[in-house]
């Protein structure tokens, strides 16, 4: 494919699940850069370049956020709210990727302006298909306005 690699911020507390996402995206041959944080607090630190992420070189602005809901310290929903209520971050597509198929979770996520809601399948092939299609859709076909890189610094 073409174009610049898109930075994906993956917020996932379970290392095994993070590994699954990483492996599948790698095999789909879509150019991207996966940044993994292990809870909501770290995700916010990354987005606002705080603490260990204070160096912009280590924390490029993501073109997509892949967010688990249940995480220690700060959960996914809180991260979603923060992102969508910040004008500098609001246009970043946020895709929820969770094991929960509960109606309340979906409703809450969409109420907080999640762009998509995906449930982790209980099947290896399906999980692979999902991430493959996800990659094509969100990284190839989906268009977002070009953000002024400078505007995200503050």
């Amino acid at each position, binding site marked *: 494919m073409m174009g610049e690699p898109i930075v994906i911020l993956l917020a996932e*507390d*379970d*290392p*095994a*699940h993070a*590994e*699954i996402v990483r*492996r599948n995206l790698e095999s789909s041959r879509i150019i991207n850069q996966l940044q993994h944080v*292990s*809870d909501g607090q770290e995700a916010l630190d990354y987005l606002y370049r705080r603490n260990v992420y204070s160096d912009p070189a280590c924390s490029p602005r993501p073109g997509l956020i892949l967010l688990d809901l*249940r*995480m*220690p*310290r700060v959960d996914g929903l809180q991260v979603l709210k923060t992102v969508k209520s910040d004008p500098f971050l609001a246009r970043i597509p946020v895709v929820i990727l*969770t*094991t*929960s198929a*509960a109606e309340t979770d979906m409703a809450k996520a969409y109420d907080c302006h999640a762009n998509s809601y995906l449930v*982790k*399948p*209980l*099947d*290896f*092939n399906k*999980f*692979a298909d999902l991430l493959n299609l996800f990659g094509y859709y969100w990284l190839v076909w989906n268009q977002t306005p070009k953000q002024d890189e400078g505007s995200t610094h503050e």
Partner: protein
Amino acid sequence: MTVENLQLKRRAARQDRSGVRAGFWCNVLLFLSILVFYPDSAPAAGPQPSSTGSKVAITINAASEYDYPPFCVINEQGEADGFSVELLRAALKAMGHEVSFKTGPWDQVKKSLIQGEVQVLPLVGRTPERQQFFDFTVPYLTLYGTIVVREGETGINTLADLVGRQVAVMRGDNAEEFVRRINLDATIVTTKTFEEALRELAEGQHDAVIIQRLVALQLIKQADLGHQISVGSSLDSFAQSFCFAVRGGDKHLLSLLNEGLSIVIADGTFRRLYTKWFAPIETGLKERSRIIVGGDSNYPPFEYLDENGEPAGYNVELTKAIARQTGLNVAFRLGTWVEIREALARGEIDVVQGMFYSPEREKSFGFSPAHAVVNHAVVVRNDTIMPESLSSLAGKSIMVMQGDIMHDAAIEQGYEDQLILVASQEEALQRLSAGEYDCALVAKIPAYYWIAQKGWNNLQVSDYSVRSPEYCFAVPDKNDWLLPLLSEGLANIKAAGQYRQIYAAWLGVYEKNQLTQWEIVQRFFWIIIPILVLLVAMILWLWTLRITVRKRTAELRQEIVERQQREAEIATKNLELDKKNAELERFTYSISHDLKSPLVTVKTFLGFLKKDLEAGDQEKIGRDLHYMHSATNKMGQLLADLLTMIKVGQTGLTKEQITFRHVVEDALSTLAGAITEHNVQVQVDDVPLLLYGERTQLVAIWQNLIDNAIKYRSLHIPPSIAIGLEQTHEGPVFHLRDNGRGIDPCYQEKIFGLFDQLNPAIEGSGLGLALVKRIVELNNGRIWVESSGSETGSCFKFTLPAVITNTGGA
């Protein structure tokens, strides 16, 4: 005088009774008259003062004739005077107002009222024609016409005797109107004045003059014609009512006058004025003649003929005293009661000195104020049982004096068929004593008199009175003029004390004074007791009402308090339920999520493993297996914790006594592997405390806390744990202090939630602290953590009241 006048006089007469009653009646009359007359004043509006309540005295203008004696005349000072003038003045004064009179002939006087120059006229005869211009008060006097004839003329007594004769009247006078109205079949001659008519009559012209009786008397006196002509009796059909008159529509003044009039009638002013102005005229004519006073010849001690045949008794003495007082020339004629009564009706007797008043009798006679009250009683022989009352005489033979008030009373009771009429009370008692008939109804005092006099000791007189009629002077209607004189005389001798002497001398010996007083007291009590009873009943009722209200208020208050308590309880319960529900929801949610999560890992890595095995990538195969291994471990741990969690919530587990040390040692032994592995220093305070509870639960508290402390140990310094107990104001507080990583204050609440792990990299289900919290709370305790944050260690503290209290403390 007529019925109206008599009633007025009866009212006035009643005043002369005992002080209490007179005052009482006076008030009643006043009250009644206000009731009767006041409605007239109701529609009156405007600034004029109204009724007795008014404080503003107003001078009312009146106009009076100067030549209508004795109603309206002019005195020597040239001022208005006369009966009507004085009456108007008195009536207005009673209402708090004054009056000024101007005088003139009738035409002028009448005109001045019509034109509004004056407000009231004191004397206006009420006729339909005049009602167009004037409003009239109630009549205060009714005058009657009469026939005047020459002295010695005996053929003319009534109107019927005038047929074919020549009759003179004044032109335009009521008298002319009267003779024309009744179509008198006689030659009517009109004269300019009545004086002229009377003079001509005296000189031999005409046969009779028809004229107002009082006017005639007055004119005869003035013209000194008394020896030539004589005045006959009143003509009932020729009557004229006199009133005060006001301008048509002057309702306010009218009601004022009516009220004033009723007051002066009630307070005796009217009677006083009447006597002052009329008595001299009427008596003037009669002075020469004797007044025949009639009485019962056998009604001792009131009236009877003594041994010498002379009239004697209380009534006779009283009449003599009054005659002396008023200058009347009296002669007595005593006979049987029936005979005397008939003579009175025929007019042969001028006055009867003792007659019981009754409304029926008042239709035939005029009554003076009572000069005594005579109690009547039942008399029976000693061998008979005294009847309880007048109404229990049915079937008995009863003797009464014919025409006596008891005769009337017995008929009234329906005993007519049982009556035996006798001529006198003496006869009744005598025959009763002799064994005839069952009983007699007689006056008490005469009965006592006869029984004592004749020695009829086999008779007994009832204690009670069956009737107590008023004993009065009675006159035929035509002699009404006598009544004011008699009343005046009676009042005078009462004032002089003479009355009491006569009464005591004749009646005192028979009267039980105490009884009279007792009667007064009784009457007083009859009035006061019901009022008191009513009052007490009202007070009681109010009291019970107040108690009821107070009780109900207290009950309601109690109810409200109880309801509020219940509501508070329900609210608390609801809150608890909400909390439980939320917890349950979180629990089920967490299970579904957290159990699924490792399953996803296992299944996905199985897929990777297959691929990696095919590719023979050894490194990846190792990693795949590692992830799967962790996931299954996690699931195992989760299931174990869940089971514990469910167990903790169960009730009915066996509780036992166990020392604090024992519990902590149990917990340490299950974790011995980890402790040794990480070289953890554990220090346990030597607390001699006995706990009471479910063993595995208690052990689980410390086990999980120690496990937690080991998992979150510092990576830089050797881990150490201190377990102990401290006494605080809220009771014993357990603590477990470590030197581990510490907990950021913002997560110190969150760590006790289900499946909340601060570090996902650390093994554990996230259920440990939730489980501890649950056990602590089940034992009514609370748990919290103290830590200042990163790398400062933390101290878990908790209380266990249920566990402690059940053991009785340390």
